[in-house]
């Protein structure tokens, strides 16, 4: 215990003297939580639409005004032919081209049917996909409107229309911030915890101070604990600041028990710090440690369920996600913050995270060699 006291004393003095670490711990959560949730919004707006209206009829006009009134689309071009409109897509100036054929109105009124042609620029996959869907649903609505209007009521019994009304539980207004903030906070805690620990030990290797430690009779687990505890505390501080920011700025208050949340994060941090420690035992320079940590972080973040839903990933990818500690933190954060989940709901992720913590830290202790 006494040895750990000396290690902690030393580590904290160094941390508090290192202005960049302090800045990272305080500024990073504030800035990232201020900017990212506002910018990283799934809702697609400003879809650039080019229209080729070969009909120029009141009906085609009505359709167009309905589309522009929706607020999702920006009319960037009004061309005479599809060929001209297509150059917009080629130059990446348009996301969608809507072609209204000649005789649109006449065929609609006389024959009761007509075809529209939508061309999607799929370079930006998400935008194209959502844009296409928005457009189709607007057209469908337009379709219903005119069916009622042009078909005389007596002659044509309006088709029974199935309208789906959905209610969004746990996030009734589909507020993306509510969804993003816990996820971004999860990644913040992971990044700061993992990187700080990995770089800290490797720095001691680079400077040569670790040799002075290795030549003392200090026990390996004492040394590792001496590194783990300070960064564990730091990680908790970052997390608390993050929660505070999301309450102050976004008014997000965890629905569930906040102690349960902190409890999970406490275990989770041990796992992430364990990874940082393990990486540091393999690396000799901060550069190496940085690249290896980035490698893991990229996978953790992209396969963590923050941006893309884990359930829609292919089976093999879901297996990989099972080994991604970040995915458990993100889902547990969302469960406790948005859904108010209780202890029994998070037992499985908690146990898995605890396993990560035990395995990673044991490997780190085993692989840390005082004698090479």
């Amino acid at each position: 215990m006494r040895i750990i006291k000396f290690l902690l004393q030393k580590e904290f003095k160094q941390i508090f003297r290192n202005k960049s670490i302090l800045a990272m711990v305080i500024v990073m959560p504030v800035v990232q939580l201020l900017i990212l949730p506002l910018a990283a919004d799934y809702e697609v707006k400003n879809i650039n639409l080019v229209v080729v209206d070969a009909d120029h009829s009141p009906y085609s006009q009505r359709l167009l005004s309905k589309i522009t009134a929706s607020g999702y689309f920006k009319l960037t071009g009004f061309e005479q032919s599809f060929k001209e409109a297509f150059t917009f897509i080629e130059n990446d100036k348009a996301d969608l081209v809507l072609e209204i054929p000649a005789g649109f109105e006449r065929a609609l009124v006389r024959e009761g049917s007509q075809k529209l042609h939508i061309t999607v620029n799929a370079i930006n996959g998400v935008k194209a996909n959502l844009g296409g869907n928005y457009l189709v649903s607007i057209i469908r609505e337009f379709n219903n409107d005119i069916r009622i209007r042009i078909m005389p009521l007596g002659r044509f019994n309006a088709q029974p229309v199935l309208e789906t009304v959905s209610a969004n539980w746990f996030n009734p207004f589909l507020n993306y911030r509510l969804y993003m903030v816990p996820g971004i906070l999860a990644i913040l805690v992971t990044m700061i915890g993992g990187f700080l620990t990995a770089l800290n030990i490797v720095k001691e290797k680079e400077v040569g101070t670790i040799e002075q430690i290795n030549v003392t009779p200090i026990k390996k687990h004492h040394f590792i604990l001496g590194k783990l505890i300070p960064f564990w505390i730091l990680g908790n501080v970052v997390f608390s600041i993050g929660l505070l920011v999301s309450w102050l700025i976004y008014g997000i208050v965890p629905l569930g028990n906040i102690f349960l949340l902190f409890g999970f994060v406490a275990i989770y941090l041990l796992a992430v710090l364990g990874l940082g420690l393990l990486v540091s035992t393999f690396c000799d320079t901060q550069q190496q440690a940085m690249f290896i940590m980035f490698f893991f972080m990229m996978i953790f973040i992209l396969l963590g369920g923050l941006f893309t839903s884990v359930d829609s990933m292919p089976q093999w990818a879901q297996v990989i996600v099972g080994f991604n500690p970040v995915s458990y933190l993100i889902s547990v954060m969302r469960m406790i913050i948005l859904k108010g989940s209780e202890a029994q709901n998070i037992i499985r992720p908690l146990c898995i995270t605890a396993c990560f913590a035990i395995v990673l830290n044991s490997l780190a202790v085993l692989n840390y060699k005082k004698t090479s």
Partner: protein
Amino acid sequence: MKEVVIKTEALTKRFGDFVAANAISFEVYKGEIFGFLGANGAGKTTAMRMLCGLSIPTSGKASIAGFDVFRQPELIKKNIGYMSQRFSLYEDLTVGENITFFGGIYGLSDKQLRQKKDDLVTNLGLQNEVNKLVASLPLGWKQKLAFSVAVLHDPKIVFLDEPTGGVDPLTRRQFWDLIYEAAERGVTIFVTTHYMDEAEYCHRISIMVDGKIEALDTPSNLKKIYNTGSMNDVFYQLARKAKRSD
């Protein structure tokens, strides 16, 4: 009968095909100042790291302060001090904090720590620098501090790897005064150096060439054997035989 505190037999370290230390055998006695000389790349640091329990030998035998390098490296570490080629105290801690930290992890009590810190600071004349960051000290002071920290826990043996590299002659002289003081207290000093005047201060010296010990005797005997008046000349005659360079 002199007490043997370091004893090696055919101690060897290989890195792949490269034999950094090739079957070195020697004994060092208690309270002795043992100079370990050799050109750059001759294998001095490798040999020293094996003796400190930082590096596991490939083959051979060695016992340090009565403990075996293969089986009891952690017990060896309790009984030795080490000062590496690179300055390795914490630059972002103050003089006092470094003393407390290293004393603390060697298991000194609070009372011992206070006592040792006061003695050390007075001895080195660092009263005004105790609360300054080590980074702000001149190199000579850093080295003296590093040595004092290495002997803080009263080790039986202290290993010094080129402790005076880049230090001015006056400070070097003062550094050697510290070494003599420690030796008088019964601490065995194992030191590598490139300065031949320092070699003359040693009780016995060994000269390593290409991973082997080529000569081992008192400075005066060596000068007799190689029929010359200066240690420099002895070193030239031996080091010239070296085939490998760094």
